[in-house]
């Protein structure tokens, strides 16, 4: 099991319960949509997976490890097997697109020149071949999003967490990015794709995790 939640709840310090008794088990190699209206708790659920939040109750298992029993020094290696596309991109403002996308490889110990060619090709693949040396401030929202996607997949993660990765692009670009994620999934990366865009979800026959009122609901409940 790649990720599993057992009776997981998340309460923010303000006292609000955002996720309530979530149970799920994700198989490696699949592509999952995570849907729900804005504010349903999609980002919160992803944060529980990448360990930015700890569950208030229940157990989160990641790569077959109970995350409550991880030692601090075990986090980095675990996190490097994840790719994260943040909803707010989180590009380093004074690094170029190329440097931003190369960051995970650099963190893993690669030197600049060794990774440059690979990162260039990846940026070409996401359609930024001519914007390699631009700073984030010189890029449009959609372009920044693509840099953050390139950064998330550059080290071939086992699990890709994408938080509204098509939220800032037009429909055509969204389609293109979807293909990119699907292709990545074919190469073996498990993908969790959070989005509130229902039409996008409908177009692809993929398993869906639906959030409503802090709970995961079934397709039948959704229809009702």
């Amino acid at each position, binding site marked *: 099991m790649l990720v599993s939640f057992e009776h997981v709840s998340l309460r923010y310090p303000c006292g609000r319960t955002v996720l309530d008794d979530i149970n799920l088990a994700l198989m490696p190699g699949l592509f999952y949509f995570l849907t729900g209206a804005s504010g349903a708790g999609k980002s919160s659920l992803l944060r529980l997976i*990448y*360990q*930015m*939040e*700890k569950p208030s109750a229940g157990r989160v298992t990641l790569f077959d490890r109970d995350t409550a029993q991880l030692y*601090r*020094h075990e*986090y*980095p*290696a*675990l*996190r*490097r097997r*994840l790719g*994260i596309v*943040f909803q707010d991109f*989180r590009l*380093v*403002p*004074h*690094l170029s697109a190329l*440097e931003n996308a190369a*960051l*995970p490889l*650099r*963190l*893993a*110990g*690669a*030197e*600049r020149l060794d990774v440059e060619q690979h990162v260039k090709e990846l940026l070409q693949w996401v359609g930024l071949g001519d914007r390699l040396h631009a700073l984030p401030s010189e890029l449009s929202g959609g372009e920044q999003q693509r840099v953050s996607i390139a950064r998330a997949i550059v080290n071939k993660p086992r699990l890709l967490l994408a938080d509204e990765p098509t939220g800032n692009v037009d429909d055509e670009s969204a389609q293109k990015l979807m293909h990119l994620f699907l292709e990545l999934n074919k190469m073996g990366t498990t993908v969790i794709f959070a989005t509130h865009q229902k039409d996008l979800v409908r177009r692809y026959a993929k398993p869906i995790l639906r959030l409503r009122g802090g709970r995961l609901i079934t397709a039948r409940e959704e229809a009702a």
Partner: protein
Amino acid sequence: MGMPSNLFATAFSQQRLGLMFSIIMVLMVYLGTLAIAAQAVLARTALTWGYDLQSRLTVEIPFIPDEDPLLKATKRDKMIAALRAMPEVADVTLIKDDETRRLLQSWIDDAALLDALPLPQLLDVTVKVGAALEPDAMQRALVKQVGEAQVYSHAGWMDKLFGFLTGLGVIAAVMLVLTAFAVVTVISVVCRAALVVQHDTIELLYFMGAPDHAIAKQFQKHIQALAIPASLIGFALAVLTIAMLVFMLSSLGGLSLIAPLSWVTVGGMMTLIPVGGASLAIVAARVSLLKHLRRLG
């Protein structure tokens, strides 16, 4: 770890935190270096003066009107012999009447009065190094063996000066401690400000799986690049200031007031400050960042 080296450039160059930090670091090292130099010089001077004062006594044989000069001389010689016989005494010299007069001349203008003045006979006694000699005990022994005598220890009136010098030394030491404390505080504040500015970058690195020590190292590099030149500048300014003070003092002929001391020792102690200050800054930066990372989860 091949992280880009300019990850924290935003906080340090764009927000001017780097400049602020450098200025404060220069000032701290400057003050700290002056304080330690003052401390070294004062401690050494106080020690030498203290030693000098402890090792000297004056014995006064009171003036007796119409005393037979021969008797007077015999009594004086007996007194000198008695003093020399004491095991603690290293040396005894008679202060000649002329010398005593000369000492009084500055106070008394009238030559006739000076001649008529009943002058006591004074003996300058040097005590052996390390010997503990009580002026009172010495006086009792002299009175018993020879006759009327007064023993004065210089320590009494110069004790205050000695205390003053020691006090200055203590102030310099306290200043040093306060400076170190200020360095740590300032670094922590600057680091916290930098961490706020770069919060997103740090969080990003953390959640991309950069180990704590690798993030801390990057941050530390920035502080290092600022702290080392700043320390050197502060140190150079302090050395310049001290050189000017020494030059002024020696042109006034006052350099001999300072006990003979090894400038190599003082210089060695002074270099502790920039080295210590920069190290303190680097360690403080590292600790702030590691603490910050622990709060991230």
